[in-house]
């Protein structure tokens, strides 16, 4: 997938080549604009992409623009030159109207002013860091943290967040002084004054309250979905879909068949062997129904363990969800057949994911001891990761270095106290989009697919879809004990009823069993007491208990905790220790 990177700063030694070296897995066709105090780089995707005119580098006497990704809606033919024209005429405000999956950087040479921007939903990611009066930016953190002179210090609060959510929310990363630009924000920085400003421009909650209800929500959804799929389609090419057998990927496949009648659609499903839970039957049923060319991939640790270091390096800022490896492996498999892959990401956060019923039910009973931040606590617990385990897992030094109240609770409180949503469900949905959507789902799929030069095409996570979902009456999201009610209504006659009726299960990566079997030796090697004690981040005794599947506390979840530990530890050795 295409990429941008660069830096601004006085008397800068040339670093473009070093930055590109960390991103070269994204493509070999790259361009630089490098001057005394600035450099902009762009990596061209090897695919001939219909929206290719969108991205790239542009320079004139006053401006430099670097854009990665694509625009949608009415801006599907927008070029970097037109963006420059818009900016000159109306300033940054004009760019806040852009829609699509993009990141851009724009440098005003005369004002010495840099602006970085990320799309509204967060389909693309951009990182930045400022040190020694210089700002660096890139689509992956490794292009920054591997630069000479960058001090790679672990941010303890991020560690606590990672083990609570399995990702790091808001603008932070696992390292001090590297920031992720939040979705729907732009960041501006002035070289002369060193002034910086982070500004939100995409207010989907507010946009939702200003929207007039359509005559038929179902018709409006179908129309919008048709558009978001069409905006992402390559011309006259075969496309593929990651088909899990769940509702979201099934409706994406069904919708694609409407657009691609003349071309074969390939569907790709992954499973972990017959003895583990799988959804192959549902996926096959849908593939048969839609007439796709269906492919199945068996994944087990024997296949990927030899590549796990590389996968985690590609993932970079750690994400502790074990679904990352299946994404990576399925993308590698899919590239043998197609160059464009659609996915069903976005259905959960936008139309009612599995956490919402649980969070609502937290409020149904009284007579329980509830602290004033019980909602925040319940939300953190709902991720079912290692939030409860932090006091036992992290070393005393690490525990002293973060504040539960400030770094975990306080970042959730504004979402619960917002006045922009009246309904509790809408508050939850907004949180899911802001947090899990922007910092786990989208970056994970983007980076895993980019490793194989594939663009991540998520029509259900289009920024217009995000606004639409917030406008949608909540009874059309959750209704009568059912999630994603509107999706089920709209596709009731278009996909097999069994897929509509089936309960949500998600992809269950059998890490619980893997760490007892095929991955046990590897995990014991990476998480050996010697290494754990040397690093001083975790309590070796607790790690040992997890490895031995011998924990007395209630929420054991050995597999997931070990996966998060393994991912972090490999990342730490690669990035911080530079092993």
């Amino acid at each position, binding site marked *: 997938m295409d990429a941008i990177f660069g830096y601004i700063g006085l008397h800068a030694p040339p670093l473009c080549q070093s930055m590109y070296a960390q991103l070269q897995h994204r493509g070999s066709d790259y361009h630089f604009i490098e001057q005394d105090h600035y450099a902009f780089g762009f990596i061209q995707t090897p695919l001939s992409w219909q929206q290719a005119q969108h991205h790239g580098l542009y320079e004139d006497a006053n401006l430099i623009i670097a854009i990665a990704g694509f625009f949608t809606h009415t801006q599907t033919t927008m070029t970097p030159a037109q963006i420059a024209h818009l900016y000159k005429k109306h300033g940054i405000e004009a760019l806040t109207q852009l829609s699509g999956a993009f990141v851009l950087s724009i440098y005003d040479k005369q004002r010495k002013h840099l602006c970085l921007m990320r799309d509204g939903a967060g389909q693309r990611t951009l990182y930045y860091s400022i040190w020694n009066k210089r700002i660096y930016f890139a689509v992956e953190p490794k292009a920054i943290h591997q630069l000479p002179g960058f001090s790679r210090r672990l941010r303890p609060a991020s560690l606590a967040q990672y083990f609570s959510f399995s990702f790091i929310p808001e603008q932070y990363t696992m390292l001090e002084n590297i920031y992720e630009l939040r979705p729907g924000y732009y960041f501006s920085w002035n070289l002369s004054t060193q002034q910086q400003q982070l500004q939100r421009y995409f207010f989907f909650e507010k946009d939702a309250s200003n929207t007039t209800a359509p005559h038929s929500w179902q018709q409006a959804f179908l129309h919008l979905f048709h558009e978001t799929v069409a905006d992402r389609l390559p011309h006259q090419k075969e496309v593929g879909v990651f088909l899990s057998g769940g509702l979201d990927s099934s409706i994406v496949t069904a919708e694609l068949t409407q657009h691609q009648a003349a071309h074969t659609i390939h569907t790709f499903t992954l499973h972990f062997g017959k003895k583990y839970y799988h959804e192959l039957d549902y996926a096959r049923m849908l593939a048969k129904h839609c007439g796709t060319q269906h492919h199945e991939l068996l994944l087990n640790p024997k296949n990927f363990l030899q590549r796990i270091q590389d996968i985690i390096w590609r993932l970079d800022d750690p994400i502790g969800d074990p679904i990352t490896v299946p994404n990576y492996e399925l993308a590698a498999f899919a590239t043998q057949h197609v160059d464009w892959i659609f996915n069903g990401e976005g259905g959960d956060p936008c139309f009612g994911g599995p956490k919402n019923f649980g969070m609502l039910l937290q409020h149904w009973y009284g007579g329980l001891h509830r602290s004033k931040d019980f909602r925040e606590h319940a939300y953190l617990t709902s991720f079912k990761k290692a939030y409860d385990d932090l006091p036992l897992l992290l070393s005393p030094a690490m525990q002293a270095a973060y504040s539960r109240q400030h770094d975990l609770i306080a970042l959730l409180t504004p979402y619960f106290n917002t006045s922009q949503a009246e309904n509790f469900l809408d508050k939850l949905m907004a949180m899911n989009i802001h947090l899990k959507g922007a910092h786990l789902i989208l970056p994970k799929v983007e980076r895993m697919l980019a490793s194989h030069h594939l663009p991540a095409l998520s029509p259900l996570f289009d920024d217009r879809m995000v606004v639409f979902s917030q406008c949608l009456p909540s009874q059309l999201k959750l209704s*009568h004990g059912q999630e994603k009610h509107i999706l089920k209504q709209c596709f009731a006659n278009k996909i097999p009823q069994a897929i509509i009726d089936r*309960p949500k299960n998600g992809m269950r990566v059998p890490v619980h069993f893997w760490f007892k079997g095929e991955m046990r030796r590897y995990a014991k090697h990476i998480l050996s007491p010697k290494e754990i004690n040397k690093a001083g981040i975790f309590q070796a005794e607790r790690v040992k208990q997890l490895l031995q599947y011998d924990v007395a506390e209630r929420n054991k979840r050995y597999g997931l905790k070990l996966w998060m530990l393994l991912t972090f530890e490999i990342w730490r050795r690669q990035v911080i220790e530079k092993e």
Partner: protein
Amino acid sequence: MKCPQCNYNQRRKRQGIKCIQCGYVFVFDPLRNDPVLDYRMANMIKKASSNDTQYFTPDMLYGLFLRYRKHDHLFYTAVVLLIISAISGIMSFNVDTANAKSYTIISLFFFIPSILYYISYRYKKVHNYLSRKDFDKALQKWQKNSILSSYKLIETPGLRPPPDWKEKDIFSYGVEKIIILDNNLSVDLMIKNNEHVNAKALIISSTGYPKYLKPILKKILAEQTDIPIVLLHGSSRQAHTVVQQFKNKTGIDLNNYTLQIPGYTAEQLKEIKYLQNYPPEVRHKLSLDMLPYAATIGLFSLSAALLAEEFNKSSALAYIIEDDDFE
């Protein structure tokens, strides 16, 4: 007796009932023939509360006392004696006549005690267990006097209506299933442990407790006519009596809905290896909470179809328990 606080092995007669190492004051006294000692009680509570991370009921704790009875040493002694006896018996056939007699005597010498040990093991397994009455007394004494008494123990039902939330849609979306339990205390147990959240279910007892949920339940049943209803009851009751009680208390006839009743007769429980230490008379009046906790949760987490297929198999509970940890 072992100190539950510092693990020091205190000698009661010489050192008294205050731990000489950490100052812990023992609640139970072996000289007064207390049926349980501090170390065991503390350990069982630790297990029942999963190290103070889970609420538990007296029934749940009693179930643990029954499951973790220590008679295994009798069994293993019987096995060792039997092996020695067998070896001696075999040797008697392979040596000359003079020595054969000696080996036969040795073989019998070990064989008889091995049988006695085994009989003793079987007898104790069936008869020698902590009675419910003694357990209740001991628990009361522990909760009243021990500095290690548990705040996770639920002794009385205490659910009340929730506060008025500022958002008005809290009850608007229904639930995925309804779970009916045959006693009020089990409802408290499940709610306090957040099992309703995990199962996305409304949990209510067969007496309609907590009462404020009745109108919400009626609304759900009217709107979700095919909602699965899981009915769980102990082995002392039969499903139809629970259904009748529910009808009497709430006016709702469950026979009009999709009802799943996953097991819990004494015969079914007998087949589960985890429960083989339960004496038969206990198995016949087993409350829900006396099953391994993960099994109860598993029963309403799994689909009825799976239960129908799996419940009678010995692997069923192992599957359920593993599923609890499954990501």
